[in-house]
C-alpha cells in the first residue's frame, strides 16, 4: 500500500511524524529516503513526540546512532556517511532493528538489501522552501493500518 501526503511547513511535517509515532510499537522499523534537506530529522522529531519521548532529537549524521530511552525507546540511525552495505552490515545495526524499540533509519538506501521485510518506507521530497511530499509504503498489514489512520483523520492530507 502506498499513501502520499503533502506538507507545507516544518511544523506540519513534524505533526505528521507525531501522529505516525502514536501508532508505532516496539520492533517497528522505519526506512527514510530523501535528499539533503528533505526533512528527515524534522519528521523524526515528530515521531519522538508521538512516542511520548521528551527527547532532544537532532541529526545523528556524525555520531551515526542516537539512542533515546523511554517506554518505547527510539533508535535514530543516520547512514549518510556510509558508502556501502558491507560497511552497514558490520555496524551491528541488527541489534537495534530486532531490538526493543522503534528504529528510524535515515539514508536507508545505504542498506537497501539489508532492510527487514517488515518495515515502513517513507520517501521525503523537497518540493519548495517549506513544502515537502512524503510517500509512505509498506507490505505489513499492521503498518498499513497505521498509515491509513494517518490520512483518514488528517486535514493536511492531499
Amino acid at each position, binding site marked *: 500500500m502506498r499513501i502520499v501526503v503533502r506538507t507545507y511547513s516544518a511544523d506540519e511535517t513534524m505533526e505528521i511524524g507525531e501522529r505516525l509515532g502514536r501508532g508505532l510499537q516496539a520492533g517497528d522499523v522505519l526506512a527514510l529516503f530523501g*535528499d*539533503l*534537506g528533505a526533512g528527515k*530529522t*524534522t519528521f523524526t522529531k515528530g515521531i519522538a513526540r508521538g512516542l511520548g519521548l521528551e527527547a*532532544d532529537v*537532532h*541529526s*545523528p*549524521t*556524525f*555520531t*551515526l*546512532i*542516537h*539512542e*533515546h530511552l523511554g517506554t518505547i525507546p527510539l533508535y535514530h540511525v543516520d547512514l*549518510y*556517511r*556510509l*558508502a556501502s552495505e558491507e*560497511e552497514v552490515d*558490520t*555496524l*551491528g545495526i541488527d541489534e537495534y532493528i530486532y531490538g526493543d524499540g522503534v528504529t528510524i533509519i535515515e539514508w536507508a538506501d545505504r542498506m537497501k538489501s539489508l532492510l527487514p521485510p517488515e518495515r515502513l518506507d517513507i520517501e521525503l521530497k*523537497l518540493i519548495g*522552501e517549506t513544502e515537502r511530499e512524503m510517500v509512505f509504503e509498506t507490505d505489513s498489514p499492521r503498518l498499513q493500518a497505521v498509515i491509513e489512520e494517518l490520512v483518514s483523520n488528517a486535514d493536511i492530507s492531499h
Partner: protein
Amino acid sequence: MKILGIETSCDETSAAVIEDGRNILSNVIASQTDVHKRFGGVVPEVASRMHVELIMPTIQEALDKAESTLENIDAIAVINRPGLIGALIVGVAAAKTMAFAANLPLIAIHHIEGHIYANWLVNPDIQFPVVCLVVSGGHSDLIYMSGHGKYEILARTRDDAAGEAFDKSARVMGLSYPGGPQIDKLAKEGNPHAVHFPRAKMGDSLDFSFSGLKTAVIRYMEGIEAKPPLPDLAASFQQAVVDVLVENTFRAAQERGVKQVLMAGGVAANSGLQSAMKARGQELGIAVSAPPPILCTDNAAMAAAAAYFAYERGETSGLDLDSFASEPIGKRAS
C-alpha cells in the same frame, strides 16, 4: 601527577600523557583521515576495527614520547560517553585493563567535558564562571560552568550541528571531505556579502538551528541564477554560521555576566569563527580562549586534562565502568 588519557569515541584513536592537568608530555592521534577520505566521511566499523588495531601501539607511543612507563603513571582517563558504542568500548576496555593491571585509579570523562578542558592545556588564566561554545560535527552547545565539573546546558542545536552544516554544504558546493577546513580556506579570499544566507533565530531561546541554512544552500546551488565564484559562496555561507554562533555566545555571556568565553570542538579551529569571536569579545570586554587546532579536534590530551580536575574532586570509577552512546554532559556515568 601524570595521567594517561585515552580517546576512541569517533574516528580518532588517541592516547596522551598529561602532567597536572596542564602540561602535555605527549598527545598521539593516529589520524584516520586518509582512510576516511576514500569513503567521503567517517566509516564507523572501519573506525572500530582500526581502533582495535591502533589502540595499543598508540598508547605505547604516547608513553614512549612522554618518557614514561605504566609504573610512573598515576591514573588512567578514558572517554566513555557519548559516541559510537562500538568505538567507545575499545578505549574503555584498554583503560580498564591497564588500570586493573597496574592498580591505578580509573577516571571516566564525557566527550564534551574533554573538549572544554582542552582550554586548560593552553590557558593558565581561566576564571569561573565561564560560558563555553562547543562546536563540532556532532555538537553545537552553549554550556555555563560555575566551577570545575559544574555544567549547565544553555543551548543546543535543534537539528544539524555547525560542523555538519559545514560538511554538507561543502558537498553541495562540490568540495571534497572534510569540507569545513576547505570552506574556511576559501572564505579567506571571498566576499561574505556576495549571497545572503539565512540566520536562524529561535525566539528568546539561545538554541541553534542550521538545517534551514543547509536547505537554503541546496536550493541556491540548484537554482538557475548565475553563481558567484566559490570563495564568495564559501565566505557567505561561513559568515551565516559565524554570525549566529557569535551572537548567541555573547548573548549568553552577557545574560550570565561572565567575563570569559571558552571555545571547543573541531569547528572552534575555524579561523573565521575565531577572529569574529575575538573581535566581539574585545568590544565587550570579554576574554575569548580557544585551543590550537590540534587540541580542538578529537584527542586524548583533553581527556587527561579533564581527568586531573575530576580526580581532585574524587571522581573515580570502578572496573565495571560502562560506555554510553548518548548521555548529556553533567550527569555522572560510571
